[in-house]
């Protein structure tokens, strides 16, 4: 038993590792397998699914296996931990299962010209990340896998990267889900700081504490931002339709069982921690409701079948979100059930649309009609999935829709205005009914467009459209079969997947049975109402289209997104051009003006008296003259700065005065050095000046010069005050005293300055000489390396 437990724990790890390793090996394996590489991916997905099935025993016994690794930061309680409770396990099974079908389909769907190995590598990487999301037992691990799904789906959506639309769609998906990912990271950090753990099971056990924490609302909002962006909830829904630029198998995978479902998966994951709070209900349910209606309404406006499916996905996700917001047992059941049902029928529908596209070369619903004649099997399969989506009895969609209605109606006792919820639910479902019929009846019945009957050259199939080979049909058939099976005999699947999943989402085991017939109840009446209204609207759909055209809203989320990106690039461009304008003057202003202000504040804060020296040393007349001359000469350099030769000569005078001053202030070494260096510097100046224009007009305006002078004066005054403050401080200098005392006995020199330079602080001198050496090397390189003559022309 213990051995079996360990084995199953390792299996948990392999569920993620197998697709991951398979993905990493794909480039190599691809060289061997060639175009058969798809089967490698099929095998990997199948193994992952099989491993999950092998875990079913422990999942059903309520004793979920846990695997954890001491990474990334066990000291912080941040572990990469995996566990297979009912929710994660069931979801993982759907991911791996549908993943397998998608790989089979894609193997037949992709043309030979496409880089197959790369495609399946991306797909397996994504699948591995998604399995990681659903199996994570720790929010840190979940976030890591979560972001990986964003990154890998970016590659998948942009697979046909030479198309501008594909790049646009991928970029958009990454930015929007990336935004949510960041919010989620921030939320998880707050959870960690608030609770000291990121372990989901522990958090579930301490749900009360989480809800009572003062950070509860920020945490909720941040985590929900992650959920809503990922699951394309209003107002972040707009990335999803653009993600349809991906190859169809990718869309089928991303938008039925994975990517967007990661959001609602997380909603189910945190459901037992957050449910019950008013904020949870209002935010989650309102957003869900808005998304459901908006998606369904939007689906009807689309002529591209994939776009239609995209909006229908948005709508269905809205429905699920809405349900989770209610936070009741029934709602949790309905939402969880619907997630599984939606995965099956939506994957089927995407794959069907892929077949139609593959065979006819178009996805325009205005052109596609009467295809049942040409592709009867596809028509039947599409019918099953579409009717399941519409919520027709004997199919899985009906059952979850009934539960949905039941939950909506259950709250009407609280007051008449609570009828709002069932009313909107019916509204959304009617629209769903209509677009599902469009997908099935619209495409496969009616008069066949004669263009479609012949090969029109656009088709990627050969000749007349026909049912594709088994490789593309079988995955759809399996999905359709599941829709039927669940719709008619829900029992088996209920016990196998749904029971444990709902128990996990609710937080404790839930007692229920899903029945096809449970009497002539309110939900059934609403279902009938939905079907009748839906049929009427479908019949009159051209009128609906007219209404929609009239109501067309020119200002969508996409417009805002595009404008925001454009504004970002333009606005930052302007800002950057203004700041990084290439002018030294502007750079120095921005750098030094704040310094002058801050220093003035510091000096002035405690009154000027504090920095004023108590007494000054006497001023000899000669020194006064010397300093006066120095000031005059300095100002003269400024005054004549445009007559450059004169300016350089006056600068020499300043240097000479400084040297004399050093001599007066008991620094003979300094005076000598200064004089020497000054002489060389002036010679260098003159050499350079010889090459430059002698006298030049000022490049700055009078106003600029005035402002510069203001800053310069401010800087000068501040430095002047600082010097006075040091004089006021007049601290003892024990280090200097030491040098004076130790110079002769320990340093062996009478010239204390020299002893400091070569002994006490000889290390400075080493650096100083190095600077000179490097300057010489650099100057040499500057002089020697020139553009070659031929370049210059």
């Amino acid at each position, binding site marked *: 038993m213990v051995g079996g437990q360990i084995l199953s724990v390792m299996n948990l790890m392999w569920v993620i590792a197998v697709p991951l390793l398979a993905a990493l090996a794909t480039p190599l394996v691809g060289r061997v397998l060639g175009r058969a590489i798809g089967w490698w991916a099929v095998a990997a997905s199948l193994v992952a699914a099989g491993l999950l099935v092998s875990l079913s025993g422990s999942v059903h016994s309520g004793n979920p296996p846990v695997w954890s690794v*001491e*990474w*990334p*930061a066990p*000291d912080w309680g941040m572990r990469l931990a995996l566990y297979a409770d009912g929710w994660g396990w069931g979801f993982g099974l759907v991911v791996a299962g549908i993943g397998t079908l998608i790989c089979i389909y894609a193997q037949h769907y992709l043309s030979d010209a496409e880089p197959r190995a790369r495609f399946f590598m991306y797909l397996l990487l994504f699948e591995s990340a998604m399995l990681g999301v659903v199996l994570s037992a720790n929010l840190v691990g979940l976030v*890591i896998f979560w972001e*990986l799904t964003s990154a890998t789906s970016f590659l998948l959506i942009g697979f046909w990267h*030479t198309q501008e639309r594909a*790049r646009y769609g991928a*970029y958009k998906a990454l*930015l929007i889900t*990336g*935004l949510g990912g*960041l919010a989620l*990271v*921030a939320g998880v*950090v*707050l959870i*960690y*700081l608030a609770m000291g753990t990121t372990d989901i099971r522990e958090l579930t056990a301490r749900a009360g504490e989480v809800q009572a924490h003062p950070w509860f609302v920020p945490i909720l909002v941040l985590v929900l931002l992650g959920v809503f962006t990922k699951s394309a909830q209003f107002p972040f829904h707009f990335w999803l339709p653009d993600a349809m630029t991906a190859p169809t198998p990718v869309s089928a995978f991303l938008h039925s069982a994975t990517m967007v479902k990661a959001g609602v998966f997380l909603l189910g994951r945190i459901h037992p921690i957050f449910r019950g709070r008013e904020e949870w209900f209002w935010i989650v349910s309102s957003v869900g409701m808005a998304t459901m209606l908006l998606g369904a309404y939007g689906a009807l406006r689309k002529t591209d079948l994939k776009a239609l499916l995209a909006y229908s996905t948005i709508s269905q996700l809205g429905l699920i979100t809405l349900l989770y917001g209610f936070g009741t047992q029934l709602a949790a059941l309905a939402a969880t059930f619907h997630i599984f049902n939606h995965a099956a029928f939506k994957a089927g529908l995407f794959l069907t649309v892929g077949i139609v596209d593959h065979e006819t070369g178009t996805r325009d619903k205005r052109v596609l009609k009467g295809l049942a004649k040409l592709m009867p099997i596809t028509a039947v399969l599409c019918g099953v999935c579409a009717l399941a989506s519409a919520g027709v009895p004997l199919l899985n969609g009906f059952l979850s829709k009934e539960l949905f209605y039941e939950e909506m109606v259950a709250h009407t006792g609280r007051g008449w205005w609570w009828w709002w919820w069932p009313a909107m639910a019916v509204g959304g479902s009617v629209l769903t009914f209509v677009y599902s019929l469009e997908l099935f009846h619209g495409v496969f019945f009616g008069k066949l467009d004669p263009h479609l009957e012949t090969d029109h050259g656009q088709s990627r199939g050969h000749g007349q459209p026909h049912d594709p080979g088994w490789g593309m049909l079988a995955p759809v058939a399996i999905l359709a079969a599941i829709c039927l099976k669940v719709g008619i005999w829900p029992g088996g699947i209920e016990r196998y997947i749904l029971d444990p999943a709902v128990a996990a989402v609710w937080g404790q085991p839930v007692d229920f049975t899903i029945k096809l017939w449970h009497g002539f109840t309110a939900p059934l009446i609403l279902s009938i109402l939905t079907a009748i209204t839906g049929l009427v609207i479908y019949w009159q759909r051209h009128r609906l289209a007219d209404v929609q055209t009239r109501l067309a809203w020119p200002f969508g989320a996409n417009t805002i997104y595009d404008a925001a990106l454009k504004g*970002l*690039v333009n606005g930052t*461009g302007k*800002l*950057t051009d203004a*700041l*990084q304008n*290439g002018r030294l003057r*502007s*750079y*120095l202003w*921005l750098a030094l003006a704040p*310094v002058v202000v801050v*220093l003035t504040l*510091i*000096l002035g804060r405690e009154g000027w008296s*504090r*920095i004023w020296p108590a007494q000054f040393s006497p001023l000899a007349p000669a020194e006064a003259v010397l300093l006066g001359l120095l000031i005059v000469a300095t100002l003269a350099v400024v005054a004549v700065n445009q007559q450059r030769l004169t300016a350089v000569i006056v600068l020499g005078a300043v240097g000479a005065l400084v040297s004399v001053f050093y001599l007066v202030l008991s620094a003979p070494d300094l005076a000598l050095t200064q004089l020497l260096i000054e002489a060389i510097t002036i010679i260098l100046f003159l050499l350079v000046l010889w090459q430059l224009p002698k006298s030049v007009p000022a490049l700055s305006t009078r106003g600029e010069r005035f402002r510069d002078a203001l800053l310069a004066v401010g800087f000068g005054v501040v430095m002047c005050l600082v010097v006075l*403050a*040091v004089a*006021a*401080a007049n*601290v003892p200098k*024990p*280090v*200097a005293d030491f040098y004076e005392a130790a110079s002769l006995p320990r340093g062996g020199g009478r010239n204390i300055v020299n002893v400091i330079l070569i*002994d*006490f*602080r*000889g*290390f400075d001198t080493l*650096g*100083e000489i190095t600077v000179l050496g490097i*300057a010489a*090397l*650099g100057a*040499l*390189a500057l002089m*020697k*390396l020139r553009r070659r003559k031929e370049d210059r022309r």
Partner: protein
Amino acid sequence: MSAHLPILPILWPLATALVLLLVLRRSVAAQRAFSLVSLLGLVAIEVALLLWLSGGEIAVYRLGNWEAPFGILLMADRLSAIMLLLASITAVATLLFAFGDLDERRERMHFYPLFQFLLLGLNGAFLTGDIFNLFVWYEVTLIATYALLTLGSEARQLRAGLPFLALNLTGSTLFLAAAGLIYGATGTLNMAHLSVLTAAADGASAVVVQVATVLLLVVFCFKAALFPLYFWLPDGYPAPPAAISAFFGGVATKVGVYSMMRVFPLVFPEQRALVGEGLMALGAVSMLVGVWGAVCQTEIRRLLSFHIVSQIGYLAFALGLLTEAGVAAAIFYMIHYTLVKCGLFLVAGVMERMTGQNSVKKIGGLMESAPALAALFFVAGLSLAGLPPWSGFFAKIVVVVAGFQQERYLYTGIAVLTGLFTLFSMMKIWHLSFWGEPAGERRPVPRVMYGAVALLVACSVIFAAVFQPVHAFARQTAAQLLAPDNYVRAVLWEGR
């Protein structure tokens, strides 16, 4: 031997540079080989130093054996060891890249000795325990930077060189003034001694200490390229060849950050509030202004240069918290981003070499012709943007944790949001240059250049894998830095 270990990272590159200049000047091949071998030797020395100091010892090396605070001394601790090793590892990658990237004119014009001199300056700055000596090593670093920046004398290099020099020279002037003021206000230059004296300063000398603190903050922000003192960087860094700008981008600005970590907690223990608030505010603005600058660029290395400002903003913010968690976050972030940023610059170098273009708009479809480069960029780019499972994600997490811990919601929020802009600009490169129809030429790229990139990207992956031990070490380093008493004891009382 181990007693002399702290001075070796300074003597080693100095000796190497002299050998390159005096003995091997005629043969480029010999210069290459000797530089690389010497650098690997340096790495080995620094690994030994790191192992020695990882226990928490503060090694004090008294030059000329003069007792503190009278002589200059070197002070090596965990942080110095980390910085030294980080600089050398980056240098190894850069050097390898330079073998393939640099033209022979530059190699002959003393690139290799200049590179060693730059390392010498950096290592000196990482080790010294004396504030004026720090200035000297800054100058060695800067003059080597100037020489490398303009090496080759292309018009763009020369034009970029002037403001670059002028601004850094302003910084140097302020540094010198600050060092002078510190001496005037306290009578010492030894950092540990200062720790005692600045805390005790009162009256006018307390005011001067504050002025010096502000000036040093400005100087280090200049060097680290924080708003509004970063303008020299985006104009200057893209000008020289990629190998040189990669090393600048990876390491050169870090000496400013290092100095902040070293000087503020130790030398000005009483000025925490002033320094902390200043760093956090400047950091927050830098994060945004830097990344906004990157968002609108099309020239790859210029885009990356603006990112430096933004990343330094992260560092300054985390450091400004002045808590153990904050400083540790800054250290971890610095390790991560030095390697990744250098790697990205090198990727840009490969792209330029391959296509002959430096604008993302003129390059396209590299994914098909250079899938390995695409993979390296994808990893490094997402790592810089803070996406898992690479080092950038953990670096971001530790910063955010530290920020929220101190309830700095606004600044932490800015840090989080900056990640989105970073992602935007990184994927802009991806979307325009790696995806799309092929554009630009396709020239062969020496293998060694790929190897250099791979080395750095691998480091990013490894640092994610060993996040906990590295972060724990960063945490110990932070704890050490924030306890100035240990330095005072080691320098002034022990070994007398």
